[in-house]
Structures are given as C-alpha cells and as structure tokens.
C-alpha cells in the first residue's frame, strides 16, 4: 500500500455548508448527529426544568394543564428519540468504523440519508410548538387517548407522523451498521475479537431492525384512525386499545435496550483503559448482552400489568422479566471485576463510568421490583416509575454517554476537555441527579401520580417536590459546566495526542482527529484489545505520535446531494399527510411533490457514480 507524498486537493472547492450538507464521511456525520442531538437534549432539558418549576410547590400555576401535557410528552419523546438514540448514533457513526479498522460504513450515502431524515424529523416534531400543538398524549401515545375523538387537534398527528419519519432513519441506519459490523471488519478481527462497544452496537442494530417495523405499523394504523376514520383503536367500531399497547410495547421494550446497550458498550470500553486491565469476562459480556436483547423481546407485557391481562400472562411476563436481572447482574459483576485490582486512574471518563455502575444498579433494582406484578400494580403510574427509568436512562445512558464524550472527545476534535471542569461536571451531575430523582421513589410510594400538572397541599409531597426541583437545577448547572468546558476546549489549541489515555483499541493508533480515510494502511488484528496487543508486541507503553500521511491511492466515496434531497422529499411527503382529512383524496399536493422529489432523488442516487465528486488523487 502506497504511502507517498501528500497531495490531497479537492477537485473543486466547496463552501463549508455545502461540504457538510453533502458529506458522506462517517466522522462528519457522527459529529452532526452529536451536535443536533445535543441541541434536542437541551430542548428536552428545558422542558424538564419547566416541569420541575411547575411542580416545585403545590397548586403550581406556571403552566396550564394542557401545556403541561405537551411538556411531559415532548420531554419523553425528545429525550428518547432525539437525544439518547442519536447521541448513541454519534458514537456508532464516529467510532464503529474506527474500532473495526474500516475506512467508512458499508453505505456512506445511506448513512447521510439517515442523518438528514433524523434531523428533519426532529425539527418536524419540535415545530409543533410553533402551532401551539405539541404532542400531548404521553410518549407512548396510548389509544384511544390519542384517537381523533380525544385528541382532536394536530398534536398527536405531529407525534404519530414524526415518529414514522424517525423510524425510517433508524431502520436505514440499522441495516447500514449491521452490514458494516458483520462485513467490514479489519483482517483478523473475528467476531470474538471485536471491541465490546462494537458488539453492543451490533446487538442494538438487531433490536432496531426487529422492533421499529412493529411501531411503524402501529403508527400507520393510528394515523389511519385519525386521518381516514378507520377504527383500529376505536372501541365503538370494535377496535381494541389493547392492540395498540401490545404493538407499542413489542417495540417499546426492545427500545429501552436500544437506549441502554450502547451505554453498556461505552462503559465496557472506558473501564478497562482507566483500570489498565482487560475487560473481565469478555465473552460473558458479549453473551449477556445478546441474552438481554433476546429476552427483551419476550417481556413487553410487563408494561401492561395494570391492564388486567390475567394471571397466566402476568406470571409469564413477571418471570421473563426477572430473568433479565441475571445477564444484567453478570455485566455488573464483570465491570466490578474489571476495575478490581486495576491501577485505577480517576479521570473524568472513569468517574462517569463508575457513576454509571452505581446509578444503574439502583435503577436496575427498582426495575426488578416492577417485575413483580402485584408490587407493580402499586407502583405503576406513580413517581416511583419515573424515578426508576430516570435512574436507568439518565444515571445509566446519559452518564455512560458523557463518559464516552470525555473519553473520545480528543479523538473526535483533536482537543482535550478540561479535567478540572470535567470533575465539576461529574460531581454536580451526581449530586443534582440523586437530589432530583431519589426523592421520586418516596413520593411515588406515597402515591403521587405521574403526568399530573399539579397537586394539592398536605399530601406529604411538598418538601420532596421542592427538593427535586432544586436538584433539577443543579443538574442543569452541570450541563452548563459541560458546555463551558466544550467552549474552552474549542478556543484552546488542537494539540490532543493520538493516544491520550493509553487506549486499547484501534482508534487510538491514528492521529486525532483522524484523517478522512481513517487508516493509511488497513490494520491487521491478531487478538482482542488490538492496540494494546500491538504496543505489547513492540514492547512500548506508547507509540510515537503518528504523522499525517498522504491519502494517495486511497479511494473514498465522493460527496452527494441525493441523500439530503431524498430526506427533504420524505419530509414533504409526511408533512403533506398532516393537512388532509379524507380518504377520498388522501394525498395533498405537498405529499405528491415530496414523493416525486424522493423518487427523483433515489434515481439520481442510484445512477450516481460512487466517486462522482471525489477528490482527485
């Protein structure tokens, strides 16, 4: 493989905006996933702060009941679909190719399309606020509450159609990453030598691929009910709201593993590096991850104990749910085993990873409590449940994603984040998080219901709620510290070394940030923790800083307009669905134009040579 002089001039100069709009580079796409998801995360966070401000005192009057409904629905929907999933997608995009030693994903243009469909779908969902018609039926949109009869406005149309748009992005990305991981690993990287984050990504994609079609159909039926007057979930027409709940949770439970498995993967990468020990029980980690995902398809009805499915179904789903504690426990013990006896370096990524373990254990334990059907009947729809899923989604997913952000930041941007601010960020998060969500357990057991916009005095809720609100603002402060840290590092010099942490995996073998083609020479892998193995073989602690090399002879796919064109066409098609109300003429001109644009884009895409505008070498 030639690594000769650097001559890397683009065929023609593109402006920065055009470059980012048309890029198919997985690293740029990853950064855009991260940036847009972080903005949505802030929006969802502001919604949460308004909710907490409203609930700070009894009989709060900050927002109306209707506004409150919109806030909690959008908070949940945003955090799940527009923050945690795409923040994970940022790491999939940026790091899966690097970790498996590939130059890009299998289908770079499809990858760009997923990104744009996601961003446009997120904007579409949030645009509902401009019409004062944000979704207001809960993130699970229970029928018949979400039917036309009980939700006459456009609110739930935004929700049902927005989620269909986002689902397309997820399925396309699922196909892409599954193919990438199965088929584009470096030579010698067998499945059982893959970094554990890649394994968890692979399992996550399987979950996405097999669960999103189910919600798609449920959403299509809900849209049909609302728009064409069918009766899928309308009891008067014989429809069964239970079908909505079943289809929703057949998707919804795998979805919660879609949110947490990437976090497991990140933590499993961070802990070994900062303990200077290989991951304890690698294969047990792989199989427990796969087992969790597999069981995840067989437990959906534990979200529905309160619907009265009968003792047989309740028992089955109780037992299946309890079984999940076993592989999850295996993971927790293996993480502890990894840290045990290691030479621990308490850098910010490590702090967040350790915080993750502690918080996830708490969330996991209250999860097991829900699996007991009779106990669940007491806890369901109370703040106890809210406490549980915030411990696994914030204390779990967000802590792990933050660990990943600090860990991989130098690789992504060539700049280190400040350790001092990082520690402030961690401790403020840890304190703010627990002050916010720990009291929810108690207030929940006292009987405070979820999704009520206010509560009267004297029920014993007052103090807890005030404490929670204070905690929420501490948590918000920690995010501000993080943002300040990012701004500071942005202004500082881009001087991060290639391997700041003494990393175990291939991404640390190349410059920070990586060159467009990632690896000048495709790496060859002989065992797991490939980069550690290479350092051991060379008998060094660190390799000398790798220089930038010529990309001569390396063919990278050229930029393309068509992914973004197809995404816009798709959005127009769905926006058109918002405004019509009759089956007789189901497609408005906007839909038809969008469809036409999409078809046009797909054809241009299909016939576009892969390296149409590639830099000439």
């Amino acid at each position, binding site marked *: 493989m030639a690594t000769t002089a650097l001559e890397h001039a683009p065929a023609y100069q593109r402006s920065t905006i055009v470059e980012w709009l048309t890029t198919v580079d997985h690293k740029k796409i990853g950064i855009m996933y991260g940036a847009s998801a972080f903005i949505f995360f802030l929006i969802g966070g502001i919604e949460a702060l308004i909710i907490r401000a409203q609930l700070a005192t009894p009989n709060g009057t900050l927002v109306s009941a209707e506004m409150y409904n919109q806030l909690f629905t959008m908070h949940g929907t945003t955090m799940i679909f527009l923050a945690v999933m795409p923040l994970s997608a940022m790491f999939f995009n940026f790091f899966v190719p690097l970790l498996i030693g590939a130059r890009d994903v299998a289908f770079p243009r499809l990858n760009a399309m997923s990104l744009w469909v996601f961003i446009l779908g997120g904007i579409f969902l949030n645009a509902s606020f401009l019409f004062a018609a944000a979704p207001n039926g809960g993130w699970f949109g229970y029928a018949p509450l979400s039917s036309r009869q009980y939700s006459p406005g456009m609110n739930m149309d935004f929700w049902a159609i927005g989620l269909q748009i986002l689902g397309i992005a997820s399925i396309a990305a699922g196909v892409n990453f599954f193919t990438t991981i*199965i*088929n584009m690993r470096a*030579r*010698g990287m*067998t*499945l059982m030598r893959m970094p554990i984050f890649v394994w968890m990504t692979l399992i996550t994609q399987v979950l996405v*691929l*097999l669960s999103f079609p*189910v919600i798609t159909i449920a959403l299509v039926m809900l849209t049909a009910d609302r728009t064409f007057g069918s009766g899928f979930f309308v009891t008067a027409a014989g429809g*069964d709201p*239970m*079908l909505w709940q*079943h289809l929703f949770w*057949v998707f919804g439970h795998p979805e919660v593993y879609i949110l947490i498995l990437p976090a497991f993967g990140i933590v499993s990468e961070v802990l070994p590096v900062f303990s200077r020990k290989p991951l304890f029980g690698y294969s047990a980690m792989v199989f427990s991850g796969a087992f969790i995902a597999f069981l995840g*398809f*067989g437990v959906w*009805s534990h979200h529905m104990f309160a619907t009265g*499915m*009968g003792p*047989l*179904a309740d028992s089955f789903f109780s037992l299946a749910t309890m079984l999940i504690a076993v592989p999850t426990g295996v993971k927790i013990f293996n993480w502890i085993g990894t840290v045990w006896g290691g030479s621990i370096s308490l850098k910010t990524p490590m702090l967040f990873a350790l915080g993750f373990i502690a918080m996830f254990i708490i969330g996991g334990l209250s999860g097991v409590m829900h699996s007991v059907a009779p106990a669940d009947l007491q806890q369901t729809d109370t703040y106890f449940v809210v406490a549980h899923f915030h411990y696994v989604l914030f204390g779990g997913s967000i802590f792990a994603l933050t660990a990943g952000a600090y860990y991989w930041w130098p690789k992504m941007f060539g700049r280190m984040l400040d350790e001092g601010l990082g520690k402030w960020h961690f401790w403020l998060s840890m304190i703010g998080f627990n002050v916010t969500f720990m009291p929810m357990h108690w207030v929940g057991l006292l009987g405070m219901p979820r999704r009520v916009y206010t509560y009267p005095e004297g029920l014993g809720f007052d103090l807890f709620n005030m404490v929670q609100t204070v905690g929420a603002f501490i948590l918000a402060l920690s995010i501000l510290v993080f943002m300040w840290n990012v701004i500071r590092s942005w202004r500082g010099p881009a001087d991060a070394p290639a391997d700041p942490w003494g990393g175990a995996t291939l991404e640390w073998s190349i410059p920070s940030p990586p060159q467009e083609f990632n690896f000048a020479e495709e790496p060859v892998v002989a065992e797991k923790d490939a980069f550690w193995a290479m350092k051991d073989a060379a008998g060094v602690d660190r390799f000398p800083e790798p220089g930038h090399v010529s990309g001569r002879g390396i063919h990278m796919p050229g930029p393309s307009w068509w992914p973004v064109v197809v995404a816009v066409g798709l959005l127009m098609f769905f926006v058109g669905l918002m405004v019509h109300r009759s089956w007789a003429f189901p497609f408005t001109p906007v839909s038809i134009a969008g469809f036409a644009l999409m078809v046009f884009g797909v054809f241009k895409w299909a016939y576009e040579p892969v390296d149409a505008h590639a830099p000439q070498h």
Partner: protein
Amino acid sequence: MASHTDAHGEHLDHAHASAGRYIQIAVILFALTALEVLLYEAIFGSLRESSGALATSLGPWFVELLLALSALKFFLVAAFYMHLKFDIKALTWVFSFSLGLATTVILSLFLLFWYNRGLWWMDGPW
C-alpha cells in the same frame, strides 16, 4: 466467520442450482398452490357436494393443512429461488432469526388476545 476471502467473485456459485432445478421448483410450487385451492373447494367451495367423505375427514384439519402447504412453498422459494441453500450460512441465520421472532410475536399475541377473550388457541381466528 473469520475467513477473509475476497467477495468480488461469486465463490459459492459452483453449488448453484441450474435452470432445470428452477423449473422443477416452479412445478412443485404450482402443484402446491393448486392443492391449496382444491382443498378449499373440496371442503367449503364448489366441490363440496362431490367430495363427500374426504371433505368431512379433512375439514377439521383445513387450517393446519393450509399452513403446512404454505410453509412448504415458503421454504422452497427461500431455499432455492433466494439461494439460501447455496449461500453462506450467515444469511440463513439472519432470515430465520427474524422469521422465527416474527412468528413468535404473532403466536404470542394470538395467545394473549384469545386467552383474554376467554377463547382457547384453536378457537382462535380460524
């Protein structure tokens, strides 16, 4: 899994089915479809009068017979026309895992719904 071979050529094509095999499969598929329709006509449709004892004995097994016949057709198309029999095993795994999960979801939803409606499995949708 680890064998890194070049994917450029069609390695497994030496085991590929011939046009003759495709024709055989087509004939079988048509025969099975004809059988499905015949079964329906014999038990419920226009041939009911003349089929007599056969219809009465097959009647209770109509659903099972139809499911078996269509499963066989499904298998033939997937194995031969979609080349699963000749391709790498990974594809068979991808497809059968998805298919198995899809089937399990269908069956368990049936169980849940019919159990809830006070019916048992075989009183279900058929």
